[in-house]
Protein backbone atom coordinates (compact mmCIF):
# COMPACT_ATOMS: atom_id res chain seq x y z
CA UNK A 1 0.00 0.00 0.00
CA UNK A 2 1.28 3.44 -0.90
CA UNK A 3 1.98 5.89 1.89
CA UNK A 4 -0.25 8.96 1.92
CA UNK A 5 1.64 12.00 0.60
CA UNK A 6 2.97 14.38 3.22
CA UNK A 7 1.40 17.83 3.59
CA UNK A 8 4.53 19.52 2.24
CA UNK A 9 4.43 17.31 -0.87
CA UNK A 10 0.74 18.12 -1.48
CA UNK A 11 1.38 21.84 -0.99
CA UNK A 12 4.27 21.70 -3.45
CA UNK A 13 1.94 20.11 -6.03
CA UNK A 14 -0.74 22.75 -5.45
CA UNK A 15 1.81 25.54 -5.86
CA UNK A 16 2.88 23.96 -9.12
CA UNK A 17 -0.64 24.40 -10.40
CA UNK A 18 -2.30 21.10 -9.42
CA UNK A 19 -5.59 22.50 -8.10
CA UNK A 20 -7.12 19.07 -7.48
CA UNK A 21 -4.36 18.20 -5.00
CA UNK A 22 -6.05 20.63 -2.62
CA UNK A 23 -8.80 18.01 -2.32
CA UNK A 24 -6.33 15.82 -0.39
CA UNK A 25 -5.73 18.57 2.19
CA UNK A 26 -9.45 19.28 2.35
CA UNK A 27 -10.22 15.63 2.99
CA UNK A 28 -7.44 15.29 5.56
CA UNK A 29 -8.27 18.38 7.62
CA UNK A 30 -12.01 18.96 7.19
CA UNK A 31 -12.79 17.07 10.40
CA UNK A 32 -10.26 19.05 12.39
CA UNK A 33 -11.42 22.37 10.93
CA UNK A 34 -15.06 21.54 11.72
CA UNK A 35 -14.11 20.61 15.27
CA UNK A 36 -12.46 24.00 15.75
CA UNK A 37 -15.27 25.95 14.08
CA UNK A 38 -18.33 24.22 15.53
CA UNK A 39 -17.35 25.22 19.07
CA UNK A 40 -17.25 28.88 18.18
CA UNK A 41 -20.12 29.69 15.84
CA UNK A 42 -23.82 28.74 15.66
CA UNK A 43 -24.42 25.28 14.17
CA UNK A 44 -26.24 26.79 11.18
CA UNK A 45 -23.11 28.72 10.17
CA UNK A 46 -20.51 25.96 10.54
CA UNK A 47 -20.56 24.69 6.94
CA UNK A 48 -20.30 28.15 5.39
CA UNK A 49 -17.50 29.19 7.70
CA UNK A 50 -15.59 25.95 7.12
CA UNK A 51 -15.89 26.61 3.38
CA UNK A 52 -14.58 30.14 3.85
CA UNK A 53 -11.67 28.82 5.91
CA UNK A 54 -10.54 26.39 3.19
CA UNK A 55 -10.88 29.00 0.46
CA UNK A 56 -8.79 31.45 2.50
CA UNK A 57 -6.24 28.69 3.12
CA UNK A 58 -6.01 27.97 -0.61
CA UNK A 59 -5.59 31.63 -1.50
CA UNK A 60 -2.96 32.14 1.20
CA UNK A 61 -0.98 29.01 0.37
CA UNK A 62 1.78 30.92 -1.50
CA UNK A 63 2.50 32.69 1.80
CA UNK A 64 2.57 29.49 3.85
CA UNK A 65 5.95 28.88 5.44
CA UNK A 66 6.93 25.30 4.44
CA UNK A 67 8.86 24.94 7.71
CA UNK A 68 5.69 25.32 9.82
CA UNK A 69 2.80 22.87 10.37
CA UNK A 70 -0.17 23.10 8.03
CA UNK A 71 -2.61 21.99 10.75
CA UNK A 72 -1.58 24.78 13.10
CA UNK A 73 -1.64 27.31 10.26
CA UNK A 74 -5.15 26.16 9.29
CA UNK A 75 -6.39 26.47 12.87
CA UNK A 76 -5.10 30.07 12.95
CA UNK A 77 -7.11 30.82 9.80
CA UNK A 78 -10.16 29.09 11.33
CA UNK A 79 -9.94 31.06 14.59
CA UNK A 80 -9.58 34.39 12.83
CA UNK A 81 -12.46 33.57 10.48
CA UNK A 82 -14.67 32.77 13.49
CA UNK A 83 -13.62 36.05 15.09
CA UNK A 84 -14.47 37.90 11.85
CA UNK A 85 -17.85 36.16 11.84
CA UNK A 86 -18.67 37.48 15.32
CA UNK A 87 -17.46 40.97 14.50
CA UNK A 88 -19.78 41.06 11.48
CA UNK A 89 -22.62 39.44 13.41
CA UNK A 90 -22.34 41.97 16.24
CA UNK A 91 -22.22 44.87 13.79
CA UNK A 92 -25.35 43.79 11.97
CA UNK A 93 -26.85 41.84 14.90
CA UNK A 94 -28.09 39.17 12.52
CA UNK A 95 -28.13 36.49 15.19
CA UNK A 96 -30.85 37.26 17.75
CA UNK A 97 -29.80 37.80 21.36
CA UNK A 98 -30.81 34.77 23.34
CA UNK A 99 -33.06 35.35 26.36
CA UNK A 100 -33.32 33.38 29.56
CA UNK A 101 -36.32 32.03 31.40
CA UNK A 102 -36.97 31.02 34.99
CA UNK A 103 -35.70 27.53 34.16
CA UNK A 104 -32.20 28.89 33.49
CA UNK A 105 -32.18 30.85 36.73
CA UNK A 106 -33.08 27.65 38.54
CA UNK A 107 -30.29 25.84 36.73
CA UNK A 108 -27.78 28.39 38.01
CA UNK A 109 -29.11 28.04 41.54
CA UNK A 110 -28.93 24.24 41.36
CA UNK A 111 -25.30 24.35 40.12
CA UNK A 112 -24.31 26.68 42.93
CA UNK A 113 -26.11 24.73 45.62
CA UNK A 114 -24.87 21.32 44.41
CA UNK A 115 -21.95 19.68 46.18
CA UNK A 116 -20.14 18.89 42.94
CA UNK A 117 -20.55 19.70 39.25
CA UNK A 118 -21.11 16.04 38.33
CA UNK A 119 -24.68 16.26 39.61
CA UNK A 120 -25.56 18.68 36.81
CA UNK A 121 -25.12 16.19 34.04
CA UNK A 122 -28.62 15.27 32.93
CA UNK A 123 -29.51 16.06 29.35
CA UNK A 124 -31.95 18.80 30.31
CA UNK A 125 -29.39 20.42 32.57
CA UNK A 126 -26.79 20.25 29.81
CA UNK A 127 -29.23 22.03 27.52
CA UNK A 128 -29.90 24.68 30.14
CA UNK A 129 -26.16 25.13 30.63
CA UNK A 130 -25.67 25.57 26.87
CA UNK A 131 -28.41 28.18 26.76
CA UNK A 132 -27.00 30.09 29.72
CA UNK A 133 -23.60 29.99 28.08
CA UNK A 134 -25.00 31.29 24.76
CA UNK A 135 -26.85 34.03 26.66
CA UNK A 136 -23.71 35.12 28.51
CA UNK A 137 -21.44 34.99 25.45
CA UNK A 138 -23.97 37.03 23.44
CA UNK A 139 -23.50 39.82 25.93
CA UNK A 140 -19.73 40.02 25.53
CA UNK A 141 -17.87 41.82 22.77
CA UNK A 142 -16.48 39.61 19.94
CA UNK A 143 -12.97 40.00 21.38
CA UNK A 144 -14.03 39.07 24.91
CA UNK A 145 -16.07 36.23 23.53
CA UNK A 146 -13.08 34.73 21.71
CA UNK A 147 -10.75 34.89 24.71
CA UNK A 148 -13.44 33.57 27.05
CA UNK A 149 -14.00 30.56 24.84
CA UNK A 150 -10.34 29.84 24.28
CA UNK A 151 -8.93 30.51 27.75
CA UNK A 152 -11.86 30.14 30.16
CA UNK A 153 -13.77 27.30 28.53
CA UNK A 154 -11.13 25.37 26.58
CA UNK A 155 -8.26 25.91 28.97
CA UNK A 156 -5.75 27.32 26.48
CA UNK A 157 -2.90 29.40 27.83
CA UNK A 158 -2.83 33.11 27.11
CA UNK A 159 0.13 32.56 24.86
CA UNK A 160 -1.60 29.84 22.80
CA UNK A 161 -4.69 32.01 22.36
CA UNK A 162 -2.55 35.02 21.44
CA UNK A 163 -0.70 33.03 18.81
CA UNK A 164 -3.91 31.76 17.22
CA UNK A 165 -5.61 35.15 17.20
CA UNK A 166 -2.53 37.12 16.19
CA UNK A 167 -2.77 39.34 19.30
CA UNK A 168 -0.20 40.07 21.98
CA UNK A 169 -0.17 37.85 25.08
CA UNK A 170 -0.73 40.91 27.27
CA UNK A 171 -3.80 41.84 25.27
CA UNK A 172 -5.23 38.34 25.71
CA UNK A 173 -4.49 38.33 29.45
CA UNK A 174 -6.08 41.74 30.00
CA UNK A 175 -9.13 40.77 27.94
CA UNK A 176 -9.52 37.46 29.78
CA UNK A 177 -9.41 39.25 33.12
CA UNK A 178 -12.00 41.82 32.03
CA UNK A 179 -14.23 39.22 30.36
CA UNK A 180 -14.23 37.05 33.49
CA UNK A 181 -15.35 40.07 35.48
CA UNK A 182 -18.14 40.76 33.00
CA UNK A 183 -19.26 37.13 33.08
CA UNK A 184 -19.27 37.15 36.87
CA UNK A 185 -21.47 40.26 36.84
CA UNK A 186 -23.86 38.70 34.32
CA UNK A 187 -24.22 35.53 36.36
CA UNK A 188 -24.64 37.53 39.57
CA UNK A 189 -27.45 39.52 37.96
CA UNK A 190 -29.08 36.31 36.85
CA UNK A 191 -28.91 35.01 40.39
CA UNK A 192 -30.33 38.24 41.79
CA UNK A 193 -33.34 37.81 39.50
CA UNK A 194 -33.90 34.38 40.99
CA UNK A 195 -33.50 35.68 44.54
CA UNK A 196 -35.97 38.55 43.99
CA UNK A 197 -38.61 36.02 42.99
Amino acid at each position, binding site marked *: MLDAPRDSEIIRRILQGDVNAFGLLLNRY*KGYALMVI*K*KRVPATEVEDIAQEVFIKAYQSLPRFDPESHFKKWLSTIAMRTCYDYWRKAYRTRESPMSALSERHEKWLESVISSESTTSA*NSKDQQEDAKEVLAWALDRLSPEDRMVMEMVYLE*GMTGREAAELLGWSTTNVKVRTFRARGKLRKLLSKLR*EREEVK
Partner: protein
Amino acid sequence: MNLKKGDIEKVQQALASAYKTREKIEVGDAWENRVMFQIRGLGPLTSRLDFTALFERYFWRFAPAAALTLLVLGGVLYQQIDFLSDCEMARAFLGTRFDDSLFQILGAS
Protein backbone atom coordinates in the same frame (compact mmCIF):
# COMPACT_ATOMS: atom_id res chain seq x y z
CA MET B 1 -25.56 39.49 45.41
CA ASN B 2 -22.16 38.73 43.96
CA LEU B 3 -21.18 35.12 43.41
CA LYS B 4 -18.51 33.70 45.67
CA LYS B 5 -15.26 32.32 44.26
CA GLY B 6 -16.36 28.74 44.90
CA ASP B 7 -19.68 29.36 43.15
CA ILE B 8 -17.94 30.86 40.17
CA GLU B 9 -15.72 27.78 39.87
CA LYS B 10 -18.75 25.48 39.94
CA VAL B 11 -20.52 27.51 37.27
CA GLN B 12 -17.36 27.66 35.18
CA GLN B 13 -17.00 23.87 35.27
CA ALA B 14 -20.65 23.38 34.36
CA LEU B 15 -20.40 25.85 31.47
CA ALA B 16 -17.11 24.39 30.22
CA SER B 17 -18.64 20.91 30.29
CA ALA B 18 -21.66 22.15 28.30
CA TYR B 19 -19.35 23.93 25.88
CA LYS B 20 -17.47 20.71 25.14
CA THR B 21 -20.59 18.66 24.48
CA ARG B 22 -21.82 20.56 21.48
CA GLU B 23 -23.53 18.41 18.91
CA LYS B 24 -21.48 16.56 16.35
CA ILE B 25 -21.49 18.18 12.94
CA GLU B 26 -20.41 16.27 9.91
CA VAL B 27 -20.21 17.45 6.36
CA GLY B 28 -20.91 15.20 3.44
CA ASP B 29 -19.47 14.83 -0.05
CA ALA B 30 -21.76 17.60 -1.29
CA TRP B 31 -20.00 20.13 0.95
CA GLU B 32 -16.57 18.91 -0.15
CA ASN B 33 -17.59 19.10 -3.80
CA ARG B 34 -18.89 22.62 -3.29
CA VAL B 35 -15.59 23.75 -1.77
CA MET B 36 -13.56 22.11 -4.55
CA PHE B 37 -15.84 23.71 -7.16
CA GLN B 38 -15.04 27.12 -5.71
CA ILE B 39 -11.32 26.30 -5.47
CA ARG B 40 -11.22 25.25 -9.12
CA GLY B 41 -13.02 28.47 -9.98
CA LEU B 42 -10.14 30.40 -8.40
CA GLY B 43 -7.69 28.75 -10.78
CA PRO B 44 -4.20 27.34 -10.20
CA LEU B 45 -1.80 29.01 -7.83
CA THR B 46 1.66 29.93 -8.85
CA SER B 47 4.67 28.84 -6.84
CA ARG B 48 6.41 32.05 -7.86
CA LEU B 49 6.11 34.32 -4.87
CA ASP B 50 5.16 37.84 -5.69
CA PHE B 51 7.02 40.77 -4.17
CA THR B 52 4.41 41.36 -1.45
CA ALA B 53 4.54 37.77 -0.29
CA LEU B 54 8.35 37.79 -0.18
CA PHE B 55 8.32 41.10 1.67
CA GLU B 56 5.83 39.74 4.23
CA ARG B 57 7.85 36.59 4.75
CA TYR B 58 11.29 38.16 5.15
CA PHE B 59 10.66 41.68 6.44
CA TRP B 60 10.33 40.81 10.15
CA ARG B 61 12.99 38.13 9.93
CA PHE B 62 15.61 40.68 8.89
CA ALA B 63 14.23 43.71 10.70
CA PRO B 64 16.33 43.31 13.91
CA ALA B 65 19.57 42.84 11.96
CA ALA B 66 18.74 45.85 9.75
CA ALA B 67 17.97 48.02 12.77
CA LEU B 68 21.25 47.00 14.45
CA THR B 69 23.23 47.73 11.28
CA LEU B 70 21.61 51.17 11.04
CA LEU B 71 22.50 51.91 14.65
CA VAL B 72 26.15 50.88 14.15
CA LEU B 73 26.45 52.89 10.92
CA GLY B 74 24.83 55.88 12.62
CA GLY B 75 27.35 55.64 15.45
CA VAL B 76 30.29 55.42 13.06
CA LEU B 77 29.05 58.39 11.04
CA TYR B 78 28.54 60.41 14.18
CA GLN B 79 32.14 59.76 15.22
CA GLN B 80 33.63 60.51 11.81
CA ILE B 81 31.68 63.51 10.54
CA ASP B 82 32.46 66.85 12.09
CA PHE B 83 29.04 68.31 12.77
CA LEU B 84 28.62 72.03 13.22
CA SER B 85 25.91 73.22 15.48
CA ASP B 86 23.52 75.97 14.31
CA CYS B 87 25.25 78.45 16.63
CA GLU B 88 28.67 77.68 15.22
CA MET B 89 27.39 78.02 11.66
CA ALA B 90 25.80 81.37 12.45
CA ARG B 91 28.96 82.60 14.18
CA ALA B 92 31.10 81.60 11.16
CA PHE B 93 28.87 83.57 8.81
CA LEU B 94 28.49 86.58 11.03
CA GLY B 95 32.25 86.77 11.62
CA THR B 96 32.88 87.25 7.88
CA ARG B 97 31.90 90.51 6.21
CA PHE B 98 29.47 90.04 3.37
CA ASP B 99 31.35 92.24 0.84
CA ASP B 100 34.63 90.44 1.64
CA SER B 101 33.05 87.10 0.90
CA LEU B 102 31.50 88.43 -2.31
CA PHE B 103 34.86 89.73 -3.50
CA GLN B 104 36.43 86.38 -2.71
CA ILE B 105 33.76 84.57 -4.68
CA LEU B 106 34.11 86.90 -7.65
CA GLY B 107 37.86 86.52 -7.50
CA ALA B 108 38.53 90.22 -7.04
CA SER B 109 41.49 91.26 -4.94
